[in-house]
């Protein structure tokens, strides 16, 4: 059965829409392979994946995808330089031990990198923290502080600052509030999700 871009989670749909057809892709933290399958079936991409959870790897293999069980923090080192057109890290950066290093690795392996993450400075989170004085538990961040896999919380502006510091170019950026796009201007306040397409200056 062929996968369909319109059925994807909104941030994955943005990535899938903007991947060039026929390109080589590495999806880091690929989960059950939904994005990879969509890229293979609709964009004819050569998609490879890395995933931490064995059951997810099994699900990917059953979809005919090539996925290696591994950890973004330690196992990206084994991929050759510039071996894919795009390295993709969706909703995973905030769970890594060394986000800066992971970013460097993505841009070493890929000519470009898609990175998507939840914006912790979204107004709902700010309000929740302000009024309740407790770490926000929202639709976007449904787990309590002690249960969440997120260990490096960041905002859109934090991410932009890191890119500047690391001399990384922004080739494109998209912001989502729920399922709808919102403008880059007020993104740090209004966006729930951010998606960046990055490259390293040559």
């Amino acid at each position, binding site marked *: 059965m062929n996968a369909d871009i319109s059925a994807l989670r909104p941030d994955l749909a943005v990535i899938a829409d903007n991947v060039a057809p026929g390109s080589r892709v590495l999806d880091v933290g690929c989960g059950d392979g939904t994005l990879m399958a969509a890229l293979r079936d609709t964009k004819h991409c*050569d998609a*490879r994946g890395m995933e931490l959870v*064995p*059951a997810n*790897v*099994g699900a*990917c*293999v*059953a*979809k*005919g*995808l*090539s*996925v*290696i*069980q*591994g950890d973004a923090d330690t196992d990206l080192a*084994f*991929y*050759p330089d510039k*071996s894919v057109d795009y390295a993709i890290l969706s909703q995973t950066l905030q769970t890594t031990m060394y986000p800066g290093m992971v970013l460097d690795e993505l841009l070493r392996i890929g000519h470009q990198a898609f990175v998507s993450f939840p914006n912790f400075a979204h107004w709902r989170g700010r309000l929740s923290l302000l009024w309740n004085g407790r770490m926000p538990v929202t639709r976007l961040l449904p787990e309590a502080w002690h249960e969440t896999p997120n260990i490096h919380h960041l905002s859109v502006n934090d991410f932009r600052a890191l890119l500047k510091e690391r001399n990384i170019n922004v080739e494109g950026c998209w912001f989502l509030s729920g399922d709808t796009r919102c403008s880059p201007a007020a993104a740090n306040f209004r966006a729930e999700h951010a998606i960046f397409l990055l490259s390293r200056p040559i």
Partner: protein
Amino acid sequence: MATAQIHDESEVLELDEPLPLDGGQSLSGVRIAYEAHGKLNAAKDNAILICHALTGDQYVVSNHPKTGKPGWWARMVGPGKPIDTNKFHVICANVIGSCMGSTGPASLAPDGEPWAMRFPVITIRDMVRGHVALLDSLGIEQLHAVVGGSMGGMQALSLAANFPERSRAFLVLASTARHSAQNIAFHEVGRQAIMADPEWQEGNYYHADEGRGPEKGLSVARMAAHITYLSEEGLTAKFGRRLQDREQKTFGFDADFQIESYLRYQGLSFTGRFDANSYLYITRAMDYFDLAEEHGGRLANAFCQSKARFCLVSFDSDWLYPTSDSRNVVKALNAAGLPVSFVELSAPFGHDSFLLEVPALDHVVEGFLNQ
């Protein structure tokens, strides 16, 4: 010895041409015993080659002719099973050097006497040459997949490296691209146990009276090896320190503990179905296996001609060929740019997990082969 009806479905191919060997010699009159299940389609492109482990054989599905027990992978291979014989033509051949119908040290040399220790030392690649000769004679140019666990995985990797056009996919379970010092060490214990048995007689025991030969040595070799196939967790769960059919320790050297009794049984029953010299030759072949060494010291080079898909599986309780061995192969395949999947599955049974009830394995095997 079981008394079940002997039911031998295997066929034997006799090679017309001598088989060239890594040791520099060539072996003429080679016989390869094999079993096949499921229908080969008209295009001859639905064949899967299963490679067996050290003491395995071609009886992957049908009952073993000597023990009467079900085939060694009957749970995995058959109609509707993960390796589905309704879809695939499944071939399993006894490796050369073994003793279940393929040419080995117990076979007769051209002078009419058993080869015994005159049999040339063989390698994993030599076994694979035998498999490829079989495929040639069956008219199968390209396999759908090669599947192997343990030494079978070594054959699969060797086939991928040396005959890259012969299969579209390789599934390698609980295996390695090279034998480690620890692997060699355990095999050496086994070989020394066999050779220290006076009944071994420098390998010339085939004319001995009925039932003789280095049974004690082979039994000890099997006991030592069997430990390496299990895990401490599995042994503790299955046996713990429980005593065997007794309330108290005997203050003697009987098999007081259940684990002792179990190992003695494993050792003894093995001697009824396996040739001691074959055990020497096959363990040697495994010890010599180092796929990177064959390819200029760089494992990725072994796969640079390949266009196949790969899937590797390791088990968290396997300390014989641990996950790091599989990851090593995965790294090399990645460096060669090949599509590769890898997963470490959780199972309590140690190295033997690939032969036992691990539902997650079935899922991966079926998923990978049905592409």
